[in-house]
């Protein structure tokens, strides 16, 4: 598959997509030429023609929260395979989290990732820098040098770990203001969510005898952080909001005008603690799956804008890291290939959002939060040709082995879901075709 994709990347440079519907409901022809969207009237005869009748064209999706595992765990995912999975999911850009080995906590590490991506990626890869050296939560990493580097890092996160120390969090927020950076917090109080905590603390964890962590371990950190963001007049981004309590805090903070944005993952929009009863570590994720009331709350919050965006937290793991007892298995699940399907299923098909809101939540706003200027724009002449062609009615039964990722920790295996992505173009080149 990767050969075919790279051939297409090298070969096809002019594509005319006819008769597609756009997110606002209008019909249009799209002409992709020279990496940009051009006037369809000027389409040359040798352009590849794609019949878009009955299909929807959206700007390429942007994921603010991806774990590519390279460098360090190339057996679980690489820049190449992770971005192939991204392209298959309709993404044309991913932000790569810093918790690799070595950690992306220097300009050199960030540039190294950009260089790998320039050779191998099937989507734009934007490094996220660590907030603290080695993700240890003690000293600031070289945030400014990462920002000034060729990688032009704008988003900083210790994701996987919480920046627990209030003073360090305050300094990070203050410091990144100089270059319009944003701190993306994995909110999890390490004292309320102890080292053994492996799921949501509630009725299910009590019954199964699994050590859990309560929602308040998330919402209390967010409550502190929004006050720090208010105090420092800096930008805060809250990763993977999982609970109704956190939604309440965000609603309050946004009401005060705090510069805070927030994301929700596809799995927190669909899956609940009910999945845990078989102790299958596929469903072990941090923050954990929560009860149905929380799923309802984050859906409402995404619909009303309290939660700004959807981000996948795509977290590939080698099979043997998931084949432990539940409490000892790795945290995380795949997300890139199924994100759009889950958002369509949970939000669009339930009439909680329309296609325009979906585009803002999965493309426009994540690009804006992360400062990517050549992503997330409208499908207008002159814009970069980042396009995903969508069939909103097609469905499939998800099969974990049918994947471009190196890993198989797909929580939707066996589930009937939309199968929306028909084709993806990144900078005018087709990176995925169903």
């Amino acid at each position, binding site marked *: 598959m990767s050969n075919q994709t790279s051939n297409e990347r090298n070969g096809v440079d002019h594509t005319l997509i006819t008769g597609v519907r756009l997110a606002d409901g209008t019909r249009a022809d799209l002409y992709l030429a020279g990496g940009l969207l051009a006037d369809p009237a000027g389409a040359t005869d040798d352009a590849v023609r794609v019949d878009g009748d009955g299909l929807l064209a959206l700007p390429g999706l942007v994921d603010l929260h991806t774990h590519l595992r390279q460098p360090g765990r190339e057996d679980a995912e690489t820049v190449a395979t992770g971005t192939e999975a991204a392209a298959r999911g309709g993404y044309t850009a991913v932000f790569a989290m810093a918790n690799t080995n070595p950690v992306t906590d220097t300009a050199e590490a960030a540039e190294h990732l950009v260089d790998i991506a320039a050779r191998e990626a099937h989507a734009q890869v934007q490094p996220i820098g660590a907030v603290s050296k080695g993700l240890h939560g003690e000293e600031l990493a070289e945030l400014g040098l990462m920002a000034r580097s060729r990688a032009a890092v704008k988003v900083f996160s210790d994701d996987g770990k919480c920046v627990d120390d209030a003073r360090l969090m305050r300094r990070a927020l203050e410091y990144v203001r100089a270059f319009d950076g944003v701190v993306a917090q994995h909110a999890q109080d390490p004292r309320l969510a102890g080292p053994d905590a492996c799921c949501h*603390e*509630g*009725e*299910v*964890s*009590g*019954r*199964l*005898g*699994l*050590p*859990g962590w*309560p929602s308040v371990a998330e919402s209390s950190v967010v409550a502190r952080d929004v006050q720090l963001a208010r105090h420092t007049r800096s930008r805060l981004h809250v990763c993977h909001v999982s609970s109704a309590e956190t939604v309440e805090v965000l609603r309050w903070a946004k009401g005060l005008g705090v510069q805070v944005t927030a994301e929700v993952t596809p799995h927190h929009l669909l899956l609940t603690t009910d999945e845990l009863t*078989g*102790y*299958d570590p596929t469903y072990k994720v941090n923050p954990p799956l929560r009860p149905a009331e929380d799923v309802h709350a984050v859906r409402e919050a995404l619909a009303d804008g309290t939660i700004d965006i959807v981000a996948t937290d795509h977290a590939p793991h080698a099979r*043997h*890291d998931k*084949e*432990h*007892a*539940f*409490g*000892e298995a790795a945290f995380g699940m795949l997300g890139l290939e199924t994100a759009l399907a889950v958002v369509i299923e949970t939000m669009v098909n339930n009439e909680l959002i329309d296609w325009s809101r979906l585009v803002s939540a999965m493309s426009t706003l994540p690009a804006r939060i992360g400062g990517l200027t050549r992503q997330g724009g409208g499908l207008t002449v002159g814009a970069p040709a980042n396009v995903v062609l969508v069939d909103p009615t097609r469905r499939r039964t998800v099969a974990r082995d049918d994947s471009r990722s190196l890993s198989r920790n797909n929580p939707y295996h066996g589930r009937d879901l939309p199968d929306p992505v028909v084709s993806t173009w990144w900078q005018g080149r087709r990176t995925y075709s169903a």
Partner: protein
Amino acid sequence: MRHLLSAADLDRDEVTAILDQAEEMSQVQSRPVKKLPALRGRTVVNLFFEDSTRTRSSFELAGKWLSADVINVSAKGSSVSKGESLRDTVQTIAAMGVDALVIRHHASGAPLQTTQWIDAHVVNAGDGTHEHPTQSLLDAFTMRRHFRSLGDDSFVGKRVLIVGDITHSRVARSNVLLLQTLGAEVTLVAPPTLLPSGVGSWPVSVNTDFDAALPTADVVMMLRVQKERMSGGYFPTPREYTVGYGLTRDRLATMPEHAVICHPGPMNRGLEISADAADGAASRILDQVAAGVAVRMSVLYQLLGGDEDK
């Protein structure tokens, strides 16, 4: 019965059958030659990821007295730290040709997970803070003998107090499930910090006042306080715990005369249970240990005894 993973796997008739069979097996214990040929040629592996002299010995004797070949495999420590997955560990053992795997694991759910990877019968010998079904069976065996001695061996309406660290107790979870199946009324007694989240939806009543609950008990089951809880901030000091939730000599005096005392062991004498309670006439603690072998013989026989016929 394919596996025994949870006390909830068993309905009332199955429990009764296991307990009745255990009564027969217990006859063997008092014979000079303690051996039945029932499981000759069968192989049972006790795979213990966590130390437990008492449970392992009990399963080992149970298997041996039924003439099974029994070996003990200690796989202590986290498989993550050893670089071997749980799946690899159990498949390696199973590949040697094992009929039943008796698994003790420090992580909840491990025995259940194991059943998807191997064909052998699996017995849960205690998984994390989840369940310990054979413990609940031996407790039921002990209680039933006691009820029988009072002239009525039914569990219906009998009041069982389970006292102590419910949150982290697999014994409590299995007992709640099994006693519900048998029709007993269970009251959990603990400080709020040691009551599991969601306990309100369990089929039990909850009381944080031991003194209020004790005078109506038919059975008082005291749970061990693990050392790590003492430093975990669940209660201020061991002394305070004993005053609130220990079966002290003073408290023993308020227990109904016909009631009996159980404890899954090992006991912290002076903390959750006084010597007067542990060694007194109402104590059934050593009877529980004896019942453990008979009940495990019965369970192994139920799992393996019929295999040849298939």
